[in-house]
């Protein structure tokens, strides 16, 4: 069966990374109904932020000390950039027709890409990212790299933290209120501008973590890595039900699995071998997306909300 367990694991790992990025799309959409297409670039800048920290530390530093600092660097970089873009690009368009911020988001995406390309040292070709020591580990016929463990731990902890934050903290409840009805939330004394900034910052933090995870897994980062990945993560958010944070994670996992499994097993269906390759896997991902949306237009975990057009 072409090593099914290994493929399942690979799919889930890829999906967990998509999920981490998808959370950012979904939080921001849930609150301001903006599809932040620059979010893929926020993920990319996070990875470059982590790389900068690593390069600043010098070569002798142990990875166990470097990793927390790199994570911090990634989160700070992507959060600062996300908050800045919100302040400079999206807030002035808060009451504009919806297409205006959407197109602005695409503009921000291209701008960030080109800034990194132009000004980050040697970012014109992919940059090598440090890798974790140890591994690979053989677990029942499945080969696991040490970076894969990092992905799992990061995804689980982040999702738990997010669930706690949204449910149990004051700010989290303010976010929920703003998502349900921004006007009433404002009347209740919630500073909605602040909530929106926090939503952007939270999504960016997750994207930063995903950036480090990505770099550790693939050993390289590049200025345009956020584009395709961001598109897939956005797909994951829609698949899971945009606006729902658990949906984003679930959508990511499903998408990762679909991409990995279709790339290999479609070939086993007689007459379908030409539709099975790494490049066709994105086609299958979108086929699944369309099928799911036909049956459940609100996404896997989305709620049917009829009060807003």
């Amino acid at each position, binding site marked *: 069966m072409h090593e099914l367990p290994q493929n399942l694991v*690979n799919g889930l790992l890829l999906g967990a990374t998509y999920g981490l990025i998808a959370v950012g799309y979904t939080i921001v959409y849930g609150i301001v109904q903006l599809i932040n297409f620059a979010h893929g670039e926020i993920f990319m800048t996070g990875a470059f932020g982590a790389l900068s920290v690593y390069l600043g530390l010098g070569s002798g530093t142990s990875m166990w000390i470097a990793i927390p600092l790199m994570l911090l660097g990634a989160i700070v970089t992507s959060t600062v950039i996300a908050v800045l873009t919100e302040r400079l690009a999206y807030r002035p368009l808060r009451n504009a027709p919806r*297409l205006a911020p959407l197109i602005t988001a695409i503009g921000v*995406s291209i701008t960030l890409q080109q800034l990194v390309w132009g000004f980050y040292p040697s970012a*014109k*070709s992919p940059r090598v990212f440090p890798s974790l020591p140890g591994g690979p580990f053989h677990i029942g016929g499945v080969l696991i790299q040490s970076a894969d463990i990092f992905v799992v731990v990061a995804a689980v902890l982040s999702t738990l933290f997010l669930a706690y934050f949204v449910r149990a903290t004051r700010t989290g409840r303010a976010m929920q209120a703003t998502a349900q009805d921004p006007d009433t939330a404002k009347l209740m004394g919630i500073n909605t501008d602040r909530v929106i900034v926090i939503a952007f910052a939270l999504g960016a933090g997750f994207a930063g973590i995903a950036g480090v995870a990505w770099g550790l897994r693939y050993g390289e980062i590049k200025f345009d890595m956020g584009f395709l990945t961001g598109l897939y993560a956005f797909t994951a958010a829609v698949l899971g039900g945009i606006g729902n944070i658990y949906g984003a994670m679930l959508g990511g996992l499903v998408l990762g699995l679909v991409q990995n499994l279709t790339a*290999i097993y479609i070939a086993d269906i007689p007459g379908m071998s030409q539709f099975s*390759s790494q*490049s066709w896997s994105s086609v299958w991902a979108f086929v699944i997306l369309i099928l799911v949306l036909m049956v459940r237009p*609100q996404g896997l975990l989305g709620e049917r909300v009829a009060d807003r057009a």
Partner: protein
Amino acid sequence: MRNRSLLVLTAIAATGTLTLTACGSRASNSGSGGSGSGSTTVTIGVDAPLTGSLSALGIGIQNSVDLAVKTANKTNEVPGVTFKIEALDDKAAPQQGSLNATQLVGDSSVVGVVGPLNSGVALTMQKTFNNANLVEVSPANTNPALTQGPNWQTGTKARPFASYFRTATTDAIQGPFAAQFAFSTLGKKKVFLVDNKDAYGVGLVGTFKDEFTKLGGTVAGQDHVTSGASDFSSTVNAIKSSGADFVYFGGEYPDAAPLTKQLKAQGVNIPMIGGDGNYDPTYIKLAGTASNGDFATSVGAPVESLPSAQTFVANYKAGGYSQAYGAYGGYSYDSAWAIIEAVKAVVSANNGKLPSDPRQAVEKAMSNVNFSGVTGTVSFDQYGDATNKQLTVYGVKNGVWTTIKTGTFSG
């Protein structure tokens, strides 16, 4: 309602993002080329990816042409004519290449164009240049169909565009050359083929496959990857379960390096062999120790080893360019120099003056160009292909590309 509008937005946005990345600003960059008194200034256009993941190669091409132009101006190579360069960025995107071609044709001072890097881009540019009789010399295109027509494989070779020339060898030679090396020299019998779906990658894998199966090798499997993807785990698993003893990759190093890295990380220690798209120091930098034992073929003999290239290498260093000349630097210099030689021939045939519209004359003069360039003797056959058909196999040893053997494919 909300969900429906969301879907519409998704569609618009996704299409929008995909399209927008393909257009955007045009990076123009003019090199030096002071116009002396009484001399005509003509432009040599450059089209290459100056941004994007292949920009390292593209900027090497631009700088090498810039060096050729500066050298020609300094030595007053063509009396009464001053050269300057106009470099356009094609982002390795065929659509952008076609826009650039129109722009270069529209500029009447352009007498010839060096580029592009990608065969897929060249396909969209050829006709525009040909209609304007504007000479195009590519330092890097290796797809055979560009010079010998789409039916070259069945033996009906027909040159589609008289204005297209190249200094690089074609994949009709490169693929089989690699197949012979893998089969006879390395003794590998089972290949897994991977391409990146563009004209170059598919063409290279196709010619490799034909020769390899003819020699008696078997194809254990094949996969096509998306250029720019980072996760190749499904491809790696397909290779792993196929039992192949090496991988042949048609594409460029930004995809090849992560693939070979992820392959070795999964414990599949088989070499990857690629074409000139893999032959770049960045390949080793990105793949790290995983690249040890991999091979790549590249056009021509290694530039550094050629006595004819020593001046080029020294001048390039002295030119203070921040980027390396890359895999195609020598070929780009020779491409530009071929245009300069053609202009020289046109000028001397016209009583020492450049005709008001020199394009057609330059195109005619190209076929008689014959000079000793950086990469050896530069001249073109009846299809516009370089007569120099040398290739070299390089292997990664201890983190550097080392020359394994130089030769050509025969038969």
